């Protein structure tokens, strides 16, 4: 499902001409099977977000190969990557990244619009997904009229709406209180079971990481498998 082989990446930091090379990903190998929830845990600056960006294709790594759903995405162009993401990958962001000018419904609808789906077909799919994540009551609300938990549900619904096989989640509970955090984790787990979606979750929260099928620890750009939790 997701195969990373020997991923290496270096950031150049400092003034022009006096840049320092800082390695952020060091020979990272990762194998994620279909239907798994994999958590990557680590401190700030450990390189976990960089790894997620590399998987998503937002970042071209210095070396190594990335295979998603059996397709080598390492050398895809920006446009090809975008097309691939639109079909296969959903995103859950820490700060939700909702469009402030769009209602909850319109936010969820956005990927389908980009796909070019017709209005009536869109309406049915969006209503179904919003119902699935428990957002039926707030479809016409704007993001600033929603609670943190509701906003994250909208974000999850937007990630789900194109029926992707992979969802990449960057600190999905980072902006939520502990009670809402549990709700969102439960939702992720139930979606994983019912829709057979593979989740890669980046977190610094051990509790969140422990709820995954597999847990990896990122430290100074190196990825190591940690103890597997029983979900």
């Amino acid at each position: 499902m997701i195969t990373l082989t020997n991923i290496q990446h270096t950031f150049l930091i400092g003034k022009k001409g006096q840049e320092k090379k800082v390695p952020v990903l060091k020979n990272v190998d990762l194998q994620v099977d279909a239907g798994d929830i994999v958590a990557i845990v680590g401190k700030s600056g450990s390189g976990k977000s960089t790894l997620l960006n590399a998987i998503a294709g937002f970042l071209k790594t210095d070396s190594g190969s990335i295979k998603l759903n059996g397709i080598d995405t390492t050398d895809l162009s920006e446009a090809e990557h975008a097309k691939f993401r639109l079909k296969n990958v959903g995103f859950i962001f820490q700060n939700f990244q909702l469009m402030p000018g769009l209602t909850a419904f319109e936010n969820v609808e956005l990927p389908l619009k980009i796909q070019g789906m017709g209005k009536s077909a869109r309406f049915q799919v969006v209503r179904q997904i919003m119902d699935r994540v428990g957002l039926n009551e707030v479809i016409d609300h704007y993001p600033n009229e929603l609670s943190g938990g509701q906003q994250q549900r909208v974000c999850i619904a937007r990630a789900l709406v194109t029926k992707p096989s992979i969802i990449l989640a960057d600190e999905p509970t980072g902006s939520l209180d502990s009670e809402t955090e549990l709700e969102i984790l439960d939702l992720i787990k139930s979606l994983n079971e019912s829709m057979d979606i593979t989740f890669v979750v980046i977190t610094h929260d051990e509790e969140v990481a422990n709820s995954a099928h597999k847990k990896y620890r990122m430290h100074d750009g190196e990825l190591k498998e940690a103890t597997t939790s029983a979900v």
Partner: protein
Amino acid sequence: MQFRDQIDFVRQHVKKNRMRIFTTILATTMGCAFLIVLASIAFGLQGTLKDEVLSSDSLTRIEVYDGGDQPLDIEKIAKLDNISSISESYAMQLDNIQNKATIGANTGYAESSFVNFDALKKAKLPLSKGHYPTTEDGIVVGYNFAQNLLSKEDEKTLEKAKEGEKPKVGIQESVLGKKVQLKWTGKKGTKPVIREFTIEGIGPKPKREWEMNTYLQMSNEAKQSIVTDLKKNFGKAFNEKEMIYKSTAVYATDLEAVPALNEELKAMEYSTYTVSQQLEEMNMFFIALKAGLIFVGTIAILIASIGIFNTMTMAVTERTREIGVMKAIGASPKLIQRLFVMESAYIGIIGTAIAVVASYIISFTANWLIPKILYAATEEQSFNSSAIKFSAIPWELVVIASVISIGVAIVSGWRPARKATKIDVIQALRQD
């Protein structure tokens, strides 16, 4: 993304930044309207001058003059193709001899000439009433000929009339079939020459309201006896060579045949004059004038384009995070670029549409108001009519201005749109 959704997307963003977009549209409108109104002056004046030329002459007519040593060979000319008729006419310009026309108690000066009625008939030159005479006694008069013949009461009425007042004088009813007496009077002691004719045809109505056609055309057959009498009665006071001007006109079968026929006549070393020749020269001048004015107007649009560029650059900067999210969830760089180019095109299209409407309003107002102001200032009758157009906006001008305006708007939005496609997703998602 479906086209309808793209339009919705653009409209949503326009709504969000109403004030900024409004001012940018306003600048585009002003630039485009300036271009249209400026160029419309050239179109208006060209139209007016063209009408002027066309109203005074027949389009199929080619005036032919002998080329100095080369006298006109009518028989040779007649052998050319595409000639419907050749008309030789003689205009009278008499010094010290008065030529008056009289119908009943009404009298007036006559602008007399001798023409070939048969040739005019063949050239299909229209009459408003009657027909071309077939006998020596028949004449054709201009449309306003009868109004030029005044009775004694008419003269008194005119004397009493206040300045600017235009009382109805002359013969108002139709003079077709009426007898006209023509009288040539010389110095005291000479015997006048008197002839009587019947009006068999009345010339076409002038295209201009203020134009007065008061001519009187006699047949060429009547010329000889009148000239003989004028010579006999007035002696040296009548000089035929200086007072009677001959002109020859060749009428082409249709407008398309005029240029070729004109060339053939020139090849025979004759001098020629045609209305289309004059129109062509006039058109060349106006093409240059229009191009110049459109160029000046385009500068105004280019200035407005700076506003569009700024607006679009700000839009891209403000929406960096939004663009990042769109790219993250799978929007291609092409789609992002298209959405921004569409937004600048939207500004261009709305601005141009308002400009076109505004330009028509300005043009109509100018055509209505300027003649009134000029008439009030100069009391020149020709200004007090709808015939003079100071501004005209044909559809070609609307198309040219729209293409320039919308084209410039799209080009102005191009660079900001390219910038949007290059936004880094990671950086964009980090923005608050």
